């Protein structure tokens, strides 16, 4: 036996994915992150755990197991149906303080982009935005890669734990689902000491026609010469979508009818 080893290697904590749902449907980005997190968990010899908050989510949990989660912490209550910043943050922070995750991944959706810094600041740890790749380095530290000035910047959080990152939909592929896989469901209680200073009253979705940009298998992008793209779409099938240029460039007319 390895009795001569003087220092026991510390077993890393679990890898977590905060799953997100809309109208009881789990978002594709959550499954994509579970797929990638599975690889990290295997390398770390750690378990892969998912937190899912919502209402009437029982039927959806199997997808998380099929994507690769070993266990699901489930908050299932009417008060959790909509993203509620205070309650969601409180639940995740409390759980993280009990279980000491090594890594937490969240989709960089509108919810994830608000929830991730609320959790990170409460846990006094670092957070990297919009990663385009994540991998463990030789010391099993998470390299979080972001594009910067025509290059690639690797961000790490060497000392504080958990290591946290947000990742956009489509960065990682959806994993192959193994429907035979099951796991443990751990029900969560809603904390009773909530300051109650903020409440999401309503979520209004404006239905878009056709395929959403995030779920499109092929995206053809065009800048100022967008007319060629429109003609291209006339020859094939597709949806034309105009996004405002984020800085101060020209903004195309979103009301103009396209093919």
């Amino acid at each position, binding site marked *: 036996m390895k009795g001569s080893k003087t220092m026991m290697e510390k077993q890393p904590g679990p890898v977590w994915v905060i799953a997100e749902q809309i109208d009881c449907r789990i978002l594709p980005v959550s499954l994509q992150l579970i797929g990638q997190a599975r690889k990290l968990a295997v390398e770390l010899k750690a378990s892969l755990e998912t937190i899912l908050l919502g209402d009437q989510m029982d039927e959806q949990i199997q997808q998380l197991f099929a994507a690769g989660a070993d266990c699901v912490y489930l908050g299932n209550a009417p008060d959790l149906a*909509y*993203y509620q*910043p*205070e309650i969601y943050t409180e639940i995740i922070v409390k759980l993280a303080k009990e279980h000491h995750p090594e890594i937490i991944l969240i989709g960089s*959706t*509108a*919810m994830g*982009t*608000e929830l*991730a*810094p*609320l959790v*990170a*600041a409460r846990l*006094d*740890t*670092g*957070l*990297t*935005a*919009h990663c385009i790749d994540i991998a463990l*380095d030789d010391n099993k530290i998470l*390299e979080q890669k972001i*594009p*910067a*000035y*025509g*290059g690639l*910047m*690797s*961000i*790490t*959080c*060497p*000392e*504080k734990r958990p290591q946290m990152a947000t990742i956009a939909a489509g960065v990682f592929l959806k994993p192959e689902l193994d429907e035979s896989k099951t796991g443990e469901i751990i029900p969560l209680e809603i904390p009773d000491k909530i*300051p109650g*200073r*903020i*409440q*999401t*009253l*309503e*979520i*209004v*979705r*404006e*239905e*878009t026609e056709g395929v959403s940009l*995030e779920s499109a298998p*092929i995206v053809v992008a065009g800048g100022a010469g967008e*007319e*060629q793209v429109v*003609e*291209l779409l*006339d*020859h*094939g099938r597709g949806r034309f979508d105009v996004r405002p240029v984020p*800085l*101060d460039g020209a903004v195309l007319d979103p009301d103009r009818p396209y093919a």
Partner: protein
Amino acid sequence: MFKIVVCVKAVPDPKEAHKIKIDPATKTLTRADVPLVLNLLDKNAMEAALQLKKSLDAHITILSMGPPPADNIVKECLALGADQGFLLSDRAFGGADAYATAYTLAKGIEKIGAFDLIICGMASSDGSTEWVGPEMATFLKIPVVTRVTDIVEFGEEWWKVKASLENGYRLIRIKLPAVFTVSRELNTPKRLSFSGIIKARKKEITQWGLDELAVPEESVGQKGSPTIVANLANIDSKRKVEIITGTREEQAEQLVQKLADAGVI
């Protein structure tokens, strides 16, 4: 008096940001002489404060953290109509990530005193993390709404705002004091006026460093940042360029053919 703090950031001018390059030897950014300007979304934050001032008896304070030349953007906000300005500037604050930035700004706000509402642009053009608003709110122990697109009800203790969401919005009820980070849809910022620039000459900018904030050096700047830049590399993208000629229709047909040949459609 309704007290508003607007947090602003001096960023490298996006129009000249292409001059910033990665030095492959030192793995640092070479900033050339790119001038610092007021972050674009912070203009929306400033405009939101000015619009609230029209309806409420409000006082607007500008707060920024940055190198000494950043006082230019604080001056710009004073010229736009803010009442007083603070710049947190100290070598010790340098190299801060979003966490350390939010902590330092929160300490600045605590020192400024009582406030009702803090408004920030939802992201900066150079960092674009969107973390500083919510992390600052956490340090100040107050609620936050990010990506605010509309202020629906205001004036009392409870406000109603809309925040953008994928294909829609969230309607939120929030109790002040709070932090709002605003998106560009909220308003159209006004330009500087000559009279504003003249009036701003009489307004003060207070500069505070590590001593004035009375915070330990380990909790600010690079030392107070949980994240570090471990590596910086140029991407060696071997792109192939091919110009397709002909009429629009021919070009489109050729492109479809090429995409089909490549197996993507």
